[in-house]
């Protein structure tokens, strides 16, 4: 952005070009923390063309979250754009608390999501062990849905049994 306001689709598309270049030059990075310090205002079209589009395009493979997002109006605009794209984006404050902008997890997956957010990474077996009446298969399904919808990232790891299991990673 050449100014501290992000205005309109045209400026959004220009900014998107720079953002995607940055992401592609950091192929090893899974999570990108986007600081909004110094960003005065953005409108919904700009939001839609930039980080929301980036998060949607990389859903499940790379994660994007906000830090330094305090302005209520700006938060509302990011949320409106993310909602429209059915994309969740986390915003983290300096105390480590998060809010989800845009798509919210379904009622059935909300608890599993809260569990995953509370730790850097987790496995279905860990959630199943801590939750009441949740089997490993059930926990696995919930995490898979959260990953597909863009709430979490995942990577493959060796299971104790010798097979492969997924480790789910929060976007922070």
């Amino acid at each position, binding site marked *: 952005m050449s100014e501290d306001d992000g205005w309109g689709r045209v400026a959004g598309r220009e900014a998107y070009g720079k953002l995607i270049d940055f992401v592609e030059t950091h192929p090893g990075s899974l999570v990108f923390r986007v600081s909004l310090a110094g960003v005065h205002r953005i*409108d919904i079209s700009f939001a839609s063309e930039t980080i929301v589009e980036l998060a949607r395009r990389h859903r499940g493979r790379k994660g994007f979250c906000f830090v330094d997002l305090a302005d209520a109006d700006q938060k509302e605009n990011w949320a409106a754009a993310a909602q429209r794209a059915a994309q969740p984006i986390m915003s983290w404050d300096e105390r480590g608390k998060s809010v989800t902008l845009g798509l919210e997890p379904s009622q059935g997956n909300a608890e599993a999501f809260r569990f995953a957010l509370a730790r850097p990474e987790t496995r279905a077996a860990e959630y199943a062990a801590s939750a009441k009446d949740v089997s490993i298969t059930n926990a696995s399904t919930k995490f898979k849905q959260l990953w597909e919808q863009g709430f979490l990232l995942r990577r493959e790891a060796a299971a104790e049994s010798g097979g492969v299991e997924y480790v789910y990673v929060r976007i922070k």
Partner: protein
Amino acid sequence: MHQTLIELSPRWTNASGLEDTLRSAPSAHLSASSEVRFHVPKGCHLMTDAAVRLLSLMNQLDHSTRRVLVEFDEDESGVLGYLNRIGFFESLSPDVEVLPKRPIFSAAARYRGRNPSLVEIERIDRKRRDSTLQNRLTMAITRACTQRSDIQELQGAAWTILAELIDNVFSHSKTPLDGFAALQVYPKGNCLKVAVSDSGLGMLETLRPALRSEAPRLATLSDIDLLVEVFKRGLSRHGAGRGCGLKGCADKAIKFRADLDVRLPQVRVLLVPGKDGYRPNTAFCYSGLPLIWGTHICFTLQLD
């Protein structure tokens, strides 16, 4: 040579009043006449939404090679003086004939920015994006609405609404003609009006072709119903993930109980706050209107 006469009313005329006038005359765009004459009688006071819309219409008619005349019964002590002050003649095509005569000096050029209750008509030139326009309009709204308890929230929301509307002119207006924006505070009416107008195809003309393939059910809606859907649900020719700009505007504007007037080439909808979001005020919704190219939007906000 056949002439179309459009007779304005000798009273305060807002966008609704202008529509009444236009509906009572032959459509200037569609008639075979090569000359269109606007008569502005004594006692006619054009409000900013009507003035901006009329400005676009006159420029469009001029652009379509018609001879356009606008005849005022009063001198600069009347509406001619007001229009000069808000920059109407600066933006009116020089080929439009003003009778008895076009003001020699532009009062808008001389006093621009000095009245906190007014943001003079600004051109929205598609080739030159002026990112300060929405800031100036927002500042004027903030100054006018200091009595409102929600002024802080309103400031942020107003910027977003204006940014989206002005950006929309760039997205939908495929025309060499400029768009316009203006703001006027009406203390006696306890309201302010922000009008944004362009002379493009109009958003439904660009939206409908995309809907036919992507959402055939919506494509069958009437213009009025489809327009309401654009603001309530968000629809876009660019696909399902887009189209949130105008819906976002409406979601913000309704928090501040703003009325929203939308005029497209042949349809007009007045959206008023209801229990579940905006609802059309059917008394002011028309289809089959006399043609004015473009998208013309006006927000009316209470001052306190």
